[in-house]
């Protein structure tokens, strides 16, 4: 794993086009899925997907191979989303990333069924589908990083640029939100 990360770092230093092609192929699904969960919008996720890889090309020399490549990749993608949202609404980064705020990182168009809903509506357990949609993106994001991408908590702290304690607290709140949403769904 460490060797592979080092090899990626060396390739990115050289801006090796073949390596970038391979990485795009290899991580396309995971990156796109993450962006869909974070943005809640498939078209926007597609734009961010392309922009993320452009940044990987431009800033590849900053990746030193000491951490997992995907953690670095998700961090780039995440910050692009936050930068975009910040330029859209003149708010501070803290406000956008503060889980106590009313709608942190909620970019989905509320008037349309979200891609998350479209995806999950194929499932039979409607109660759980509805519950996942009710969770704020900031919590959904940590659930995705932990339980889909299977990142370690310290790796997540790197991606989110927050302390370990914050990651844990978001994870607990995310699970709590999930549980709360499930209860709400069951009640309705």
């Amino acid at each position, binding site marked *: 794993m460490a060797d592979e990360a080092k090899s990626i770092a060396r390739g990115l230093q050289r801006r090796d086009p073949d390596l970038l092609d391979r990485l795009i192929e290899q991580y396309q699904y995971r990156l796109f899925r993450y962006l869909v969960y974070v943005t809640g919008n498939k078209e926007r996720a597609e734009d961010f997907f*392309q922009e993320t890889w452009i940044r990987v090309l431009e800033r590849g020399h900053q990746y030193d191979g000491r951490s997992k490549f995907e*953690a670095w990749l998700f961090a780039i993608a995440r910050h692009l989303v936050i930068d975009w949202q910040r330029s859209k609404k003149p708010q501070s980064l803290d406000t956008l990333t503060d889980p106590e705020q009313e709608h942190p990182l909620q970019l989905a168009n509320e008037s349309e069924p979200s891609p998350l809903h479209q995806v999950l509506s194929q499932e039979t357990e409607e109660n759980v589908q509805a519950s996942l949609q009710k969770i704020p993106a900031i919590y959904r994001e940590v*659930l995705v990083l932990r339980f889909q991408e299977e990142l370690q908590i310290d790796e997540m702290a790197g991606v989110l640029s927050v302390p370990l304690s914050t990651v844990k607290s978001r994870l*607990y709140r995310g*699970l709590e939100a999930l549980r709360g949403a499930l209860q709400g769904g069951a009640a309705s």
Partner: protein
Amino acid sequence: MSENNHNRALQLIAQARVEGIPEADSSWLRAHLEECEFCTERAHHTDRALRMMRTATIPLPAGLASRTQFRVRLRAQELREREPKRRALWLACAVSWAFGIASALYVWRLFQWFGERTGVPKLVWELGFGLWWTVPALFLLVVVLMEKVRHGSESDWMRQSR
């Protein structure tokens, strides 16, 4: 069964999935779940939702990878074309500095001689010399600052995220 036991069980259910729990807590939780239907159902709900998140598939847009690869290659080409210009700029500045250092004494005398010939106050020709000497540095500083402004904020978080 007390409310405290339920709260502890719910906390442990979450903790077990987030960061793991010690064996003693795990045994306690197992024993509690065997007796408590309410908490068992909560645990099942949580697991089911997490399982769905893990297994949910999101269809990839057609040609997303190839379109991205194309854009990335175009950008790489742009960067490669820009590289010699940047190298030439650094080289020019380096040569200019080296020449400036080597000729500083002679230029100082030239400024001094010119100052004496024209009657310009000493401070003025000294400032003139200082300006002449710092122009390449200032030029380079402006170029570097412009680059920094363009990429500065993102570089910070990219380094932090490592």
